[in-house]
């Protein structure tokens, strides 16, 4: 099973929308995808079209096995698990991650975890095959935060594959295009794919759907498709 952890470097960078669209893009390439919400905001389900009244998730149950009923499947075939209403400790989250790997699915399936921005990933027990995509926006704050994170990663004994993924990139903005140029030439661990700012990502949620389904002729579609294929090659290199 291939595990991908997505978290924002700070709040509000658009991580959950990336998880939803990426899941759909992978599904379009006939991959088996399971998306699990580890963020107490519990909004991953909303991206997949789950009604707001449906609030329970894995955190409402004591063990993972009893939470199997909370798995949903959307029209494309993506299996997702909402967080729920109760809070969960780090150990419980860690247990959930481990139990997810025991699920009776295809060995080649993808497990996408939507992690909260405030979570320190060192608390989780990640292996060297795990990919972490830290979602950033193109602004000066994220620039500083990237370097903070890089320092942190150097000092820690991290084992996982860490990448910074740019979201909401607006090429018309001078600041953003300059920053992107700098990051592309100087910043290590930058993902070669970035997601452009596209209104359809917002608009598709109004349709209770994802941009990949709603706007096949948009740049967002291309970007998520490229992200998906890049991840596939990353994972293939791991094996």
């Amino acid at each position, binding site marked *: 099973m291939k595990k991908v952890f997505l978290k924002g470097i700070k709040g509000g960078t658009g991580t959950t929308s990336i998880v939803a669209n990426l899941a759909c893009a992978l599904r379009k390439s006939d991959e088996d995808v399971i998306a699990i919400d580890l963020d107490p905001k519990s909004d991953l389900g909303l991206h997949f079209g789950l009604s707001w009244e449906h609030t329970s998730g894995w955190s409402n149950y004591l063990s993972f096995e009893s939470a199997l009923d909370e798995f949903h499947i959307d029209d494309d075939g993506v299996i997702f698990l909402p967080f729920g209403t109760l809070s969960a400790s780090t150990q419980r989250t860690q247990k959930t991650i481990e139990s997810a790997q025991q699920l009776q699915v295809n060995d080649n399936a993808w497990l996408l975890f939507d992690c909260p921005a405030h979570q320190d990933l060192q608390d989780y027990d990640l292996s060297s095959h795990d990919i972490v995509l830290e979602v950033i926006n193109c602004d000066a704050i994220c620039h500083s935060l990237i370097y903070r994170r890089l320092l942190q990663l150097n000092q820690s004994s991290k084992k996982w594959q860490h990448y910074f993924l740019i979201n909401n990139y*607006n*090429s*018309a903005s001078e600041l953003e*295009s300059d920053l*992107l*140029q700098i990051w*592309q030439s100087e910043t290590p661990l930058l993902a*070669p794919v970035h997601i*452009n*700012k*596209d*209104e*359809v990502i*917002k*608009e598709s949620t109004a349709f209770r759907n994802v941009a990949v389904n709603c*706007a096949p*002729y*948009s*740049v*967002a*579609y*291309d970007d998520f498709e490229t992200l998906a294929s890049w991840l596939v090659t990353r994972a293939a290199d791991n094996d």
Partner: protein
Amino acid sequence: MIKHSDKKSVAERLFALILSVFFTKKIVRFIFFKFHSYFNHHKVSAIGAILMPFVLLFISLFIKLDNNNKKRIKIKLRHLYPHVSEPISTPANIIRVLLQSLYLAIFKVSTKHQPTETVIKTSTRLFSRIFTLLAFVDRKLTRKCKRLWLRLRIGSKSKSYQRVRKATIWNSKFLKIALYFVIAFAVFVFITVPFSLEAQAIYISLILIVAYSLRRVEGQIATITMITLSVTTSTRYLWWRFTDTLNWGDPVALALGMGLLLAETYAWLVLILGFFQTINPLQRKPIPMDSDTSKWPTVDVYIPTYNEPLSVVKPTAIAAQSIDWPADKLNIYILDDGKRPEFAELAKEIGVGYLDRPDNSHAKAGNMNHAMKYTDGEYIAIFDCDHIPARSFLQMTMGQFMNDEKVCLVQTPHHFFSADPFERNLDNHRKIPNENMLFYGLIQDGNDMWDATFFCGSCAVLKRKALDDIGGFAVETVTEDAHTALRMQREGYKTAYINIPQAAGLATDSLSAHVGQRIRWARGMAQIFRLDNPLLGKGLSLVQRLCYINAMLHFLSGIPRIVFLTAPLALIYFNAYIIYAPFIAIFLYIVPTLMQVKITNSRVQGKYRYSFWGEVYESVLAWYILKPTTVALINPNKGKFNVTEKGGLNDTARYDWLISKPYIVLLLINVVGMCYAVFRLLFGDVSQIGVLLISMIWVSYNIIILGAAVAVAAEAKQVRSSHRIKANFPAAIRLENGRTIKVKITDYSDSGVGIETISEHPCRENDKVELLMSRGKKQFSFPTYICNTRKNQIGLTLRDLDLAKQKAFIQCTFSRADAWIDWQENFKHDRPSYSFKHVFITSLRGFTNLIYHAPSQFKPFIILMANIINFVVSLLPKKPIKYYNQYD
């Protein structure tokens, strides 16, 4: 009636008296009644009015002329004689009636309606059956020949044959020389042995059969076979002309005949050298650079300019900055001979160097020599100010220098993104290969095989050390580029040609500018021929000399072309037998040789030049390069450098009478000659009909070629001020509401872009749209406005881009490495018959242009001529109107 008779005059009464001898009173009254009716009422002439009643009486003897009959007869007559209108008895109408009656009598034409399909179908069915049968036979035959040919080739791989080939006995020099002698002797004998007419006929048929069988066979060996056959046939032809066809008896014919013979010798020489030059194009592949960029040399880019507008030079300078090369090793300089302050400002703004000099001596060469004093790059790349380089230019070319120290020049093709005068005025753009495609696509590649590539003034890189060795750019001639390359090759350096276009520029704007440019090249080449003759002097190998000579000979085609265009008139006007041979001999020698040569040329030049267009190009230039080349051959130092204008705009469609005067004069001479020939054919000596016919065929061919040349002078209207370039690469747009759409760029210019969407789009005119284009990993966004939309296509204009955005735009469009890569791929292989048809249609277009654009003094004359022609045509018999018989 009684009242009427009271007013009769004396003449009438006398006439009535005479008539009453023959006819009854009633009939006499009838005659007078009809006469008055016709004369006064219908305004028919007196004679007609007198005759008509008698005609009616005559007819009434046979047919009962009551009302019903009259009506039916009238209707039928109207159908049978549709072009005759009231009044009937004008002279013109009488002629019409007579001719139509003859026509109806001779050709049985029915007035009943026949469904048109059957008539057409029966005739065309027969033709189409014959055609399909011929095509079937043709396919089977060529396939059989192809198989036979392949079997021969496979046979050549057999062991015994290989053993003979590889035998070391061939290494003996003595044997080689002996073999060459034997072959040369055999060739000489073969060429000079005179054939009787029957033998010639058989020989020619064999040659043509071989040519036919090799039609579908591809491959180098078949081409070489065809070339060999052409060489032998044309050499034999020339020998025959020299020995057998000069009329020593008649001094006029002798003089004219010698003139024609010299022209034909020139054509033969150019043909042979051309075959030799292009027999094996090298198609050199670019060599990649070393991955260690610290070893890369420094390059200066020169952009010489004189009087071109800023808008033309700016994209070139910006694109030059974007060439893929370490920035510290790349220096760009605008060399401004016009010393314009706005150019200095532009250079400062963009961040490139600017050089000017106190004087303007020696034009471009002097400019560059001056610049060499102030720059020190190891290599110099030169771009004309309108040639926008692609980013991969240096990557493609510098590898040759790194690989071989002796290389001093790498040249790339000159490609045009705008239409040259031929393409624009004849509407040929991208439909047939243009004039310089032959040179850059085939000839330079062939030159490269023999290490005889020469510098063409732009889109090339030169080694500075080589230039220093020869003392800088050559300034003695007006084509300093070819002369510089010649000098460098004499010093022992090598040159290279990469047949991948890395830049594109503007073609000449108008026919006069085009001719002016060619005059300069022709003069320069003639100057080089006199001042630094490649046949003499040291430093060149034999093949290099021949290649240079061929390039120069090409520009001496003025006189031979004029000779060819006027030669048949010698027979028609002066009755001078310039080819002193019986009609059959001429037919057997000339026609097959021409056909064979045309077929071989078509095969060799296939994608680069279509048949018969070469003659058109030559005819357009012939008169103009005549004088400069002759003057330059005699006195090479006369004549000045006139710069080619670039970047102008034609705002009206007009006809360039000044430029086309020579062609019109030649055309007139030929047309008058044709009429005179027809006259002689009908009324002259019967024995000369054969040669007259041949001359007439030649004259009509000349008329077609000249007509096409005349057509070029009609300048078409240029609508856009910036030229559009076709493209095909992906991009995206972001609308004002934030949505994005993936698009395809279909064309671009320096101020606008044309895009195509996959599905329908919600955009409307004047919407603001962000255009997202990428270059490599960088993505750029450009603010644009929609200027027009159609179902799937949108036109965008860029407005008010700042310098950084302009740079980015050029990087994303003009500078792309694959921008010009399909410059040749659209053209299908040449098909001579289609090409001839195309030239013919162009020629007709030329004639209509002449008439359409005629100056106002001629207009009444033309209208008169048109009216006369209309009138004469109206006299001719017409098909009776068909009508539906309601009883069928």
